[in-house]
């Protein structure tokens, strides 16, 4: 069990620990986790797809050895799926069963008033913890030793869902009308929200979060990332392929290759036992880094120039 407080004591130690978990991060990212931990604030992570937004949350969970609770957001996601739901099947079943034993329950009570007061003695069992089906958000709040809560692609959800998040994010509590307010346990969860910016997140939500923007890494950082993720790849080739990817990102593409693509490509090249880039090899493996046919067609003519640029030094 790693000592969470010790890991999070400084940005440097966070960075080091991330690296041992093969997540190479910039100062900015480590600072975000540092602040999130000490200020107990959620982090909203934005950036182009494939720069490691989700990975950051996962790695953090791994590093602190906390359970990761993940909620994938999508259009139409509502509280029943995100927060809690009554086990209505169970409730129905129990009412059916109880119907038959109603007499016993009422113990021969006479009259309406008496019956009702008998029933009251039972309290609201049907709407108690027994029948509550916790969904990810509630689960995260009730996790004893704290946890990492990841709300993935929060921009895909609706405005209503965002509003639902507000209470949780600012006070780490939710109100369930039938039960009352559920507060987080001693250790409130470490919350990460990711967004691909398909739409603007509302100001109210942003205000409650730290905002981390992860851009594409520079060449050095990306090389280190590749080194951490695909350590077997020879340094020369690593440098070449990262340079190549960076050249690609300069082009006018429908979807520019992200870090995840660079990693995939590195693995591919490793599998093919390549030790340096050449145009033929690049052409054959281009579909690993470019995901649209028209991008591939567009780049095809420039492969030779790009490769020679990447292999030049």
């Amino acid at each position, binding site marked *: 069990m790693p000592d969470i407080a010790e890991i999070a004591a400084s940005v440097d130690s966070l960075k080091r620990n991330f690296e041992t978990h093969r997540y190479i991060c910039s100062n900015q990212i480590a*600072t975000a986790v540092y602040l999130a931990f000490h200020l107990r604030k959620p982090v909203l992570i934005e950036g182009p797809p494939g720069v490691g937004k989700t990975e950051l949350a996962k790695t953090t969970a791994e590093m602190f050895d906390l359970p990761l609770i993940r909620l994938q957001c999508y259009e*139409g996601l509502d509280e029943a799926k995100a927060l809690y739901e009554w086990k209505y099947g169970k409730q129905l079943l129990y009412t059916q069963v109880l119907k038959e034993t109603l007499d016993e329950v009422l113990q021969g009570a006479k009259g309406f008033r008496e019956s009702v007061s008998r029933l009251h003695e039972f309290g609201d069992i049907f709407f108690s913890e027994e029948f509550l089906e916790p969904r990810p958000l509630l689960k995260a709040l009730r996790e004893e030793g704290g946890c990492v809560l990841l709300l993935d692609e929060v921009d895909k959800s609706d405005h209503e869902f965002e509003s639902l998040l507000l209470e949780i994010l600012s006070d780490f509590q939710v109100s369930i009308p039938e039960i009352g307010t559920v507060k987080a346990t001693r250790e409130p969860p470490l919350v990460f929200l990711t967004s691909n910016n398909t739409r603007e997140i509302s100001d109210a939500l942003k205000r409650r*979060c730290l905002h981390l923007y992860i851009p594409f890494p520079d060449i050095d950082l990306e090389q280190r990332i590749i080194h951490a993720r695909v350590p077997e790849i020879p340094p020369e080739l690593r440098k070449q392929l990262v340079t190549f990817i960076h050249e690609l990102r300069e082009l006018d593409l429908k979807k520019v290759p992200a870090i995840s693509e660079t990693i995939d490509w590195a693995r591919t090249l490793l599998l093919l036992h390549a030790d340096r880039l050449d145009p033929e090899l690049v052409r054959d493996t281009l579909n690993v880094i470019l995901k649209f046919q028209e991008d591939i067609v567009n780049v095809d003519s420039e492969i030779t120039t790009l490769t020679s640029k990447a292999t030049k030094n």
Partner: protein
Amino acid sequence: MDRVLSNFIRALRNAEVRVSTAETLDAFNAVELVGYRDRAFLKDVLSLVLPKTADEKDTYADCFDNFFAFQELRGAEGKRGDAESGDDEGEAGDGEGEGNEASEATEGRGGGKGKGKSKSKRKAAEEPEEDLGPGDMAEATSALGKLLMAGAKSELAMEMSKAGTAVNVQEIQVFTQKGLYTRRVMEAMGLADLQQEINGLRQHRDVPHRRLGQELTRRREWLREQVRDYVEQQFLLHADATGRRLREELLRKVKLSNIEHRNFRLIQEVVFRMAKKLVALHSRRKKVFKRGALNVQRTLRHNMAYDGSIFDLHWKSVKIDRPKVFAICDVSGSVANYARFMLMFLYSLEEVMPKVRSFAFSSDLAEVTELFERNKLEDAIAKVLRDYSGGSTDYGQAFVDFKKTCLDEVDNRTTIIILGDARNNYGEPRTEILKEMYDRCKRLIWLNPESRSTWNVGDAEMRRYSAYCHQTEECNSLMHLERIVGNLLRTVT
């Protein structure tokens, strides 16, 4: 030090980074946690707390560098002030030599610390310093002179801000006013008296008096720099945004064809903000329309109380039909600029109107939707204007082309917006196609950048076309655009 942070936040707000009170509190908490020791670290930390979009982060980075660079400069300045005589004497070496080495040494150290760490700088500034060494210097008589000679930094700073308030330095609007305000603040602090005293002293017979005169001159220059810095800071805090807001206000009203190229970036921001407002307004309105499949689980749950008889129905919320908009833009020379802004506006509304298809023509019409999908907004617009704006306007031909390409896709949920001046160069107007479009679509709106009175003058065909429009509008400024698009959203959603 909290003052520094809140001033910084004000500067940020002026630079159009929206910082709420809650975020300000967060910033204070964060700073309390990390302290001011490490500048780069502080920058990282605040960049997580204060700016909340990628754009704002850029602005923030600039703002941070400006603001805190300036603070540093001031620290250095303070140091020079503290160890002033030492430095100046050392470099000039003109044998005035009233050597207060002792104070020079200590102050030098104090100043050095202040430079690295802005926190101690203030402290250094408050420390009383500068005993005048061997006392062969006369006493200053004017109020300002006394303060200067006493080196009473905090009093001077207070005087400075008092003077600043007196001359309304917060009303500074453009940077050319900096000099003016510097002088005014100096005057309000009693420059005239000081000047007189200096003049008097300079011509005095006694050496100590002359010496004092020189000293005062030097200190006056130092003060001037302090005041300049102060004004500069006030400018950063107050002016930038006011000037900008003024310009934006103007831009909203000015005719779009008159907007200069250098303002495009600014206007784009205005457009985005207007669009954002509309988005916020209309995405909320959606709820009313929500009806769809039955949400079985929820319905059952809510009807348990009624013994399973289902009469309180709950629906799965479904996306409502979003408006389909076809924008047909005349991009010939006369109307190109209007087309630019309308396209900008429509595409900024992507969130509530994801299905905008756009067409551009001057003589031949082509669909340009894909250009907008592939490129950044500005690039796409530039490309459209480059590729389609040649050729003389021919509305008839454009309609024929439109009919060929996609009239079939126009249905009763479609809104067609035509932007153009209807100046057809006396060509065949082909109103029958427009009629066909009119019949098929939900709404056909014609936006004409010219003023109504000239709609039918010369080769303009507006009279004939307007018969087949649900709505014709004059549209030549951002305000018009906003109103029209707002109405559009109201009617189509």
